């Protein structure tokens, strides 16, 4: 029971982090980062190779770079930094004056390329087999299989998710968030009013990348294994579905979407008794995800929790009231 609940909490936390990042990039700034999963994977791989012993250990059955055996929290910090560092090269290549759908497809293709390259370069990150036996944080001090450890891990995940939530709130409720939203609405007009749209986009790309990297580190520290099959490009689509369903342009919607789609969905299908040939249930899941996206985009494109209208109080106080507005 402990194992089930703590797993649920950790996955929920990681999905919330991912959805917050996507919300900042897509919902607020209008960047369609279809290569998002690559950032999470980069974080996971980084945390793994930073925390693991050199690849000759454990009988040398896997090949990977580094292997610095660093203690917690360095692998997680490294993962966050790598997620952030990955953003400028990808962003500079893609965030140009392209049609938005071209940009999206270019990112999607980059995601597929990354997957192929990693798979076919076994010396780098052990190719298709992936990396396993990743040491859990602080496992040299505490017993990582004890109930206590699992609960602390999940608590830490939830706390980190809450911290990132606060950070995301600060961003979108600030004048900076307003500039981002203005750019999303009309990039040309925003530039004509002094907004540096390239800088704005890049900053959200970096912030989102950092959060994605962190989420990857948290996940890999828990499940102790990571392979290309974990981060295929449709995973990004699930996260986008979550943000579309939960509500774009606001963090509450992102959290709700994370809980409803990746978490709620996977959990719900767990309770369906296996029927039909093997693999039917996962296929059914994907069909439902696709249907969910189409259904919401048709009937309720703003999502369950729409972006709210911001009203400034008449008094001179500096608190803008927020009204739930379907607008």
């Amino acid at each position, binding site marked *: 029971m402990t194992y089930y609940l703590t797993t649920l909490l950790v996955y929920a936390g990681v999905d919330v982090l991912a959805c917050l990042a996507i919300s900042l990039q897509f919902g607020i700034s209008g960047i*369609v980062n279809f290569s998002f999963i690559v950032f999470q994977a980069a974080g996971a791989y980084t945390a793994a190779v930073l925390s693991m012993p050199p690849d000759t250990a454990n009988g040398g059955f896997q090949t990977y770079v580094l292997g610095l055996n660093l203690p917690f929290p360095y692998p997680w910090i490294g993962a966050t930094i790598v997620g952030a560092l990955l953003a400028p090269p990808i962003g500079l*290549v*893609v965030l*140009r*004056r*392209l*049609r*938005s*759908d*071209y*940009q*999206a*497809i*270019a990112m999607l*293709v*980059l995601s*597929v*390329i990354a997957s*192929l*390259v990693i*798979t*076919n370069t076994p010396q780098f990150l052990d190719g298709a087999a992936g990396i396993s036996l990743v040491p859990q944080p602080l496992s040299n001090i505490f017993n990582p299989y004890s109930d206590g450890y699992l609960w602390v891990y999940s608590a830490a995940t939830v706390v980190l998710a809450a911290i990132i939530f606060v950070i995301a709130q600060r961003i979108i409720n600030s004048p900076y968030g307003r500039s981002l939203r203005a750019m999303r609405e009309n*990039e*040309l007009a925003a530039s004509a009013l002094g907004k540096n749209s390239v800088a704005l986009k890049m900053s959200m790309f970096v912030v989102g990348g950092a959060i994605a990297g962190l989420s990857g580190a948290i996940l890999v520290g828990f499940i102790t294994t990571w392979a290309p099959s974990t981060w295929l490009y*449709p995973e990004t*689509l699930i996260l*986008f*579905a979550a943000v*579309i369903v939960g509500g774009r342009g606001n963090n509450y919607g992102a959290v709700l979407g994370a809980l409803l789609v990746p978490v709620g969905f996977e959990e719900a299908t767990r309770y369906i008794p296996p029927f*039909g*040939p093997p*693999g*039917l249930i*996962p*296929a*059914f*899941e*994907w*069909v439902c*995800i*696709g*249907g969910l*996206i*189409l259904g919401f*985009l*048709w009937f309720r*494109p703003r999502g369950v929790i729409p972006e709210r209208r911001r009203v400034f109080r008449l008094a001179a106080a500096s608190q803008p009231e927020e009204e739930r507005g379907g607008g």
Partner: protein
Amino acid sequence: MSLIVAAFGFGLVTMSIIAIAAVGFTMQFGITNMINLAYGQVMIASAYAAYAVNNAGVSIWLSMVVGAVFGALFSFLLNRTIYAPFQRKGTNLIGMVIISLAVSLVIANVLLPIVGYYSVSYHLDTGPTLHAGSIALTGVQIAIMAVAVVAMVLIYALLHFTRLGKAMRATAANPTLARNCGIPTARVIDFAWLITGALCGVAGVVAGMNSDAFSVANGSEFLIPIIAASVLGGAGHPYGAMIGAVIIGEMTEVSAALITPEYKQVAAFAALVLVMVLRPQGLLAKRGTLAAAG
């Protein structure tokens, strides 16, 4: 060296397959402004439709016709029931990309339980292997190239000599103007999806014929070389897509010979990204034909 020449030979077949597919794909984009990411899945579905018939004893060539018809109807329905309504609703370009991705997911995962995970192959006689220097191609492969040539000629004839074709070109160039000139754009679009859907179906079948075996997983693999060829030749331009297919077809096979075969796909994908970033209007189109703001 002979390896490269042999690869060049294979490239001829690959480019034929990509050409058939890319022309259909790019015309869908040109006429409806829709990047149909579900195209690869429709190809596979058509390939399976042909397989169902072929497996029951029908000749492969007749099965190809079945595949073409299946592709035509499927694509037509796809546009009528999903793409067009969303476009009419005013969904923006990104929304349409997400929608076509969702559709491709649904198609793939509806197909999977029906046809299963294991790969299948067509029952066909590959015919004699013909040699020209280091190039070795089977009868079927040469037939595929012939099919491609016939398809290209038919498309050319359609676009230049028929009223429908001219209406298609007008709609692609300027839909509002076309409508105002009395062209029934809705009907033109319907026909466009039928025809390009047929191309999609044929492409799926010949791709299946060219491989030892195929399965649902191949659907997404096809898509990226097709997009690459289309973008390379200028999105929306059928002749550009043909040229793009030539380039991509040769590139994938030759790079597989030069580097390792696993990187065959990476070469095409990297080419796509490079073209999109450096010259999104394609090699042929004049600068700036692509709108900057999406």
